[in-house]
């Protein structure tokens, strides 16, 4: 659906979008990589579970939310693509980042 502009620099940065290898030019955003991967959407909304794809490309609409290198809910249009970056689908709301539970036997007095 999307093609690079004819005047864009050569696509040399290799990223992974939902398991697909994608090459994007230096300076491209992770959201641009999502569009170049040809995916119909990159997230499901938390309430209505509707599919969304990058839209505003300027940090306003939040429709490009993705899990990037293991961090959920990133605005992919605001993140520059880096070699080896892994961009994954954001499925609804992320879980709260609770610390792992420790069993009472492991509980220590000190704070970590």
């Amino acid at each position, binding site marked *: 659906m999307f093609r690079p502009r004819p005047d864009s620099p050569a696509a040399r940065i290799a990223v992974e979008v939902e398991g697909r290898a994608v090459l994007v030019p230096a300076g491209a955003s992770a959201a641009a990589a999502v569009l170049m991967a040809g995916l119909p959407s990159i997230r499901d909304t*938390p309430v209505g579970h509707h599919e969304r794809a990058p839209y505003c490309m300027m940090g306003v609409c939040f429709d490009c939310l993705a899990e990037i290198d293991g961090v959920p*809910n990133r605005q992919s249009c605001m993140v520059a693509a880096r070699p080896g970056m892994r961009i994954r689908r954001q499925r*609804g*709301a*992320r879980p*709260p*980042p609770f610390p792992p539970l420790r069993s009472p036997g492991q509980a220590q007095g000190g704070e970590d």
Partner: protein
Amino acid sequence: MDRGRPGRDGRGPSTAGAERLGAPKIVLAAGLGNAELTPLFGLNAPVRPQRGQILVTERTTRAWPIPLGSIRQTPEGSILLGSSEEDVGFDTSQKPEIMRTIARRAVLSFPWLAELQIVRAWAALRVMPPDGLPIYDESERFPGAFTANCHSGVTLAAAHANLFAPMVAKGALDPMLAPFSAKRFDVSAAA
């Protein structure tokens, strides 16, 4: 309406312009504007602005099975951090030091909150009665004129919709709302 005034027949307000609007009933619910507006209708709502600031995180799945005081999660998953109270007139600007304090207290309570992104933050003014409780009244001078004031229209929305509004429609406030009359601020008369 720039400024309401009861009509000459006492049955409705006129406007600052040429147009005149009539209504058998009127509810003054202009928030902080009620301080100035209510005396024109023989009512009293001495509300003052109190600034509150709030931070909102990215959405997560349900984090707590219960609502908490100044850390609340919406059903959609946003976590709202807030509860600051400042007396700064009508200034709605945000202050980094207050925002920092709100964030620090939240992280002291739940350290994992530090890993969440803040996606929105704002300041706004509460419509604060002198004792913090709502003011509901009807005008004795101008029957049909009512007023409703409170600092949390969200918390009390159900009471306004299901209790207050039917009373207005009926034409008189139920005695159950008498404790919320502004007459409570006139200590010598109330004694």
